[in-house]
């Protein structure tokens, strides 16, 4: 990670200050985190509650300004107030609760909100709103009221609202945590498509291992420090290490890990269910052949 990344955090220290107490209590959440994300990457950030993963994401969006260290987005420092709108336009953020991030009473109006704030020409807003809604597959619902939509649909509207700004990067802070399995799938597919087809850099904060396994890179944060950083195939086989910090691994990886512990001969770097089924099937075939012989 030598070259300057698209999102770049260097030795970031961040603490929340509780001012209601006397003297104010300082709670340091990030202890010198360095992370670099290249353009077009799909990074999943894992960590249990309170590990600082959301705090880090908010640093990339200039919502949190680090106490020390620097955060740059496309070369712009988040400490530079002049660049605030530019940074937020470049790195959009989607939050956990879809209800609390939709502003307007009609889907398309909400989608237009960011562009209206930026003072874009009305005809251009119209064009980009339609495009964004089509991208997330919510165009038919453009005249609906948000409260009548399902969780997954609302979250896709929220993504469209960010997408309309044409950001180079989208930060998603546990976007699927409040959704049912179907909604989760809809949102994940949208995210993956954005990354693959439009080359949008994705930083996905999650605690669903199956979602993280779909990313191209996984970063594990624990206690305000980066613990692991690599491809899913490098990270997930380290089952013991992940379990020691209270995280799970994808079910397929866990199954293979347990089988390996019992002495079965299986590859360790299995992360998807298909691979797992294939490997286990191979195992059965081999053992039945051995029995025949």
């Amino acid at each position, binding site marked *: 990670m030598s070259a300057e990344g698209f999102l770049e955090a260097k030795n970031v220290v961040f603490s929340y200050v509780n001012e209601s107490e006397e003297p104010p209590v300082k709670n340091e959440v990030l202890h010198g985190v360095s992370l670099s994300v290249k353009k077009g990457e799909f990074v999943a950030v894992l960590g249990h509650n309170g590990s600082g993963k959301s705090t880090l994401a908010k640093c990339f*969006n200039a*919502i949190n300004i680090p106490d020390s260290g620097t955060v740059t987005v496309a070369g712009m420092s988040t400490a530079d107030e002049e660049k605030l*709108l530019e940074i*937020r*336009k470049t790195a*959009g*953020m989607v*939050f956990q*609760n879809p*209800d*609390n*991030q*939709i*502003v*307007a*009473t*009609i889907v*398309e*109006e909400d989608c*237009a*909100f*960011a*562009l*209206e*704030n*930026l*003072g*874009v*020409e*009305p005809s251009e*807003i*119209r064009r980009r*709103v339609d495009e964004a809604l089509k991208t997330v597959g919510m165009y038919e619902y453009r005249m609906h*009221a*948000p*409260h009548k939509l399902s969780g997954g649909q609302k979250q896709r509207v929220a993504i469209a*609202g*960010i997408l309309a*700004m044409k950001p180079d990067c989208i930060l998603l802070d546990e976007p699927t945590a409040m959704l049912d399995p179907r909604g989760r799938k809809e949102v994940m597919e949208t995210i993956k498509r954005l990354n693959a087809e439009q080359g949008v850099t994705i930083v996905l904060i999650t605690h669903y291992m199956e979602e993280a396994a779909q990313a191209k890179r996984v970063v594990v944060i624990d206690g305000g420090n980066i613990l692991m950083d690599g491809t899913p195939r490098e990270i997930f086989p380290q089952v013991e290490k992940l379990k020691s910090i209270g995280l799970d691994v994808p079910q397929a990886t866990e199954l293979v890990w347990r089988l390996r512990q019992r002495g079965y001969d299986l590859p360790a770097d299995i992360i998807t269910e298909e691979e797992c089924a294939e490997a286990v099937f191979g195992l059965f075939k081999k053992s039945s052949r051995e029995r025949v012989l």
Partner: protein
Amino acid sequence: MLKDITLGQFFPGSSPIHKMDARFKLILTVAFIVMLFMAKNKWGLLIGAVFTLMTFLISRIPFTMMWKSIKPIIPLVMFTAVLNLFFVKTGEELFKWKFILITDEGLDTAIFMVSRIVLLIVGSSLLTYTTSPIDLTDAIERLLSPLKRFGVPVHALAMMMTIALRFIPTLLEETDKIMNAQKARGSELDTGSFRDKVKGMIPIFIPLFVSSFRRAEELATAMECRCYHGGEGRTRMKQLHITYIDWIGCIYMAIFIAGVVAANIIIQS
């Protein structure tokens, strides 16, 4: 379910009235109210009634909706009618029983006042039937925008209205959930004296307030993330367009106002 309530009374459609610019509708509604109060005799009011009926027909709003808008004000209408009927003592006697005296003038005034109130409500509810809350908020923001010069935070007010409209269903749904949660914990919300019922509301409102503040904070962050920085330099996706329909609407209204004025003058002389 609480969730199913419709917001405002908007009745979607594609009539010329629906297509009119919300600003014009707002101004013309005010003109309509002025017209009703200008009418000095029943002929003037009759013109007002014809106008209301015709507008209703043009808007293609079902007449049952008309009744729906009158229903809540029936007590007020009755009160006005009774008051005028019994307390106007001038004119020819129509009916007398002990201390009750009804005169023809009293009857006239009662009918006049009642029709005026009914027309007022029916006519102005047409505005909310044919205009979505969003358009209405927008129209109010634009009509009030000259006040910005005097330091009135017009944009902030309109934004507050929009957010309130957006969150009413969400908070209603949440109230529903909290009520069910409290019922599951054995709180009795529907029984007991009035005092008990009021007391029973406390465990509903406190969680609701707490969650509203949390929502407000999250929404503020989300708005910041979408580059919200107040009304300055803001554009709007939907531009309000003044079309020929709006001018026809103005002429239509002007004809009726002229009719009312004419009725006033002719009957006087």
